[in-house]
């Protein structure tokens, strides 16, 4: 793990080359995000040329059908995808860092299941039907899920291990989905709204959703960046971190707040989306090394690119219909997860 502590003199040249590499990674990721965003605006059921897209974007009064599609459907959808991807990528990095657990992911750890139950309850009991109505409930459910999974996974001495956290997540998800089922089995109307939310999709979410969740995601991102240096110390173990002057509980609380804000907002906006938070930190860690000050922002960018890329892929493979982004990501992410499990011996995770 790279830290500022005790760097031998002969490695003096190394930070500079590492820095160049990290800057190159950052530039590459930025370019990737821009490219995917352009693709997301241009590609869809109706093909719109890049020139047409450009004209629609600069000339706000252009009234052609293509321009309206670009401005009112594709741009908000792309913006939402960027926001949510950013949030999930950063949240995954924080979760993996705080638990020192390579299998950390909001979807696998039962956080989205908590949000799902809250959404079902709000649809069923309060009769809410629009995403902007149940956003807030998803938020509360995500918070409850986060706290519960960590409380259960780290109960007793020994604290949380990758396996217990993954199992606690699976168990909690199973329990919460059982409750969800008990409600939905006898309530066809709620099922009809819920099934389009639970699949995890960017479609049909207007620009107002992006605006509603943006402040939470922004706050979460700021907290995550603040939390990054502390994560580097926590990676050395709690005792060492305490010895180096880190206030452990402060770092944990900031981290938990950031994870909840990011996951809750993302889930509220798009429904439960798994595997972004799992895949992204692993890829980025291979490029930038384990320093969280680089890892956190780069993971955000790659998360945005991955989510948006999966959305575009879903629109391309199933034309003229579309495959929801949550489904595409499950099919990309699960093989990655299994590869991870197979590569490392479970005991060494």
């Amino acid at each position, binding site marked *: 793990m790279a830290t500022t502590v005790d760097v031998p003199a002969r490695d003096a040249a190394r930070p500079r080359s590492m820095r160049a590499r990290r800057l190159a990674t950052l530039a590459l990721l930025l370019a990737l995000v821009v490219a995917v965003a352009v693709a997301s605006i241009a590609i869809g059921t109706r093909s719109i040329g890049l020139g047409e897209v450009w004209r629609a974007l600069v000339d706000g009064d252009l009234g052609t059908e293509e321009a309206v599609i670009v401005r009112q459907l594709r741009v908000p959808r792309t913006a939402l995808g960027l926001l949510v991807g950013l949030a999930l990528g950063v949240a995954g990095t924080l979760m993996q860092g705080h638990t020192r657990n390579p299998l950390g992911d909001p979807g696998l750890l039962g956080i989205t299941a908590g949000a799902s139950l809250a959404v079902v309850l709000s649809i069923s009991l309060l009769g809410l039907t629009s995403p902007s109505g149940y956003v807030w409930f998803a938020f509360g459910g995500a918070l409850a899920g986060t706290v519960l999974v960590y409380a259960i996974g780290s109960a007793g001495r020994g604290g949380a291990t990758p*396996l217990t956290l993954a*199992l606690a997540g699976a*168990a909690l998800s*199973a329990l919460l989905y*059982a409750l969800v089922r008990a409600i939905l*089995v006898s309530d066809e109307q709620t099922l*009809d709204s819920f099934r389009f939310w639970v699949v995890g999709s960017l479609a049909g979410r207007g620009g107002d959703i992006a605006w509603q969740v943006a402040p939470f995601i922004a706050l979460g991102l700021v907290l995550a960046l603040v939390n990054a240096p502390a994560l580097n110390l926590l990676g050395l173990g709690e005792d060492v971190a305490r010895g180096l002057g880190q206030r452990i509980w402060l770092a944990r609380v900031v981290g938990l707040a950031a994870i909840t804000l990011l996951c809750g907002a993302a889930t509220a906006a798009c429904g439960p989306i798994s595997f972004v938070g799992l895949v992204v930190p692993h890829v980025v860690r291979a490029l930038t090394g384990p320093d969280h000050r680089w890892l956190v922002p780069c993971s955000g960018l790659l998360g945005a690119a991955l989510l948006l890329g999966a959305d575009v892929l879903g629109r391309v493979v199933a034309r003229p219909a579309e495959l929801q982004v949550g489904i595409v990501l*499950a099919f990309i992410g699960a093989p990655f997860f299994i590869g991870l499990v197979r590569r490392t011996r479970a*005991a060494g995770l």
Partner: protein
Amino acid sequence: MSVTASPRPDQRPVRSGRTVRIGPGSASLRWRDVAVPVVTLAALVLVSAVSMGRGDFPIGVGDVLRTLVGLGDGPQEFIVLELRAPRVVVGVLVGLALGVAGALFQTFARNPLASPDTLGLTTGASAGAVAAIVLTGGTSPGAVLGGLGIPAAALVGALLAGLLLFLLTWRAGIDGFRLVLVGIALWSVGNALIDWLLTNAEIYDAASAYVWITGSLNARTWDHAVPLATALAVLLPLSLAASRTLGALQFGDNTARGLGVRLAGAQTAVVLLAVGLVAFAVSGAGPIAFVALIVPQIAVRLTGGSRPPLLASGLMGALLVVGSDLVTRTVLPEALPVGILTAAIGAPYLLWLLVRGRRRSTL
């Protein structure tokens, strides 16, 4: 991470019983190993009889038992044997299969949390069934895949998930921890598939698919029971035969090898048997949640053995399914599918296992 996990609930020494020798074989027999299955069986018969008696036309337990042995009168015979018996019989068979499969998985993975529910097998079956319901329009009249098509699709789905689980976990043998983690990945893929199918369905199909994936014994006929009984007639004896190697497998790979077990073959056989049992059980009544998880743990506590006993687990599974079905039909104000009740019992228990397991610094 400590790998000293054991499916045993406590660390009291297991008292060895009387040794019984029949020809070349020998076994250690303790009175609890016999008493627990016998008592469970008696309770199962009683609950089944009560279950067959309850309904719009109540029949006393005595009359039900008399009808079952062929001494009933005409209308009662029709009601009991044609209308109510299939439901109970399917429940018994499904519970039996789930209980035995759960005991197999838990002994094999040396982990009480390894159950078809967390390993993605029931999710695979659900995905198959939902695909059949949604893609063929299960509620539309004249659908080609009507009654028996859904169980068949569930069977295919569960076997496919089991095969994937087996192949993806296999790396010079099967590691219990890897099995559980790969299972979690399969579980989430299966769920994604189900969610996607449901968004593409007519709302009526989606609703009926939802009842199915909750696990329900509603509207079962002899057509459901017969394939299930046939499969169990083959798989149960094989499972009981495998219990000898299971005893060696629970000590860990190296010890098992030292005791003369052909590890690869034995592991393959156990996993395939358990997958087969789950597949048929789910195709019969949908994925009734957590039966395979709870029952072996209760059974091992009652018998006080070193690992979940297969036969007692199976019988208790049957008792749990039939009993839960009876409760949902009679006690609860609304007739909910049986799977909701078993989930409500099982999921908190699973969480409790996790918390308690951590306290003892084993899993």
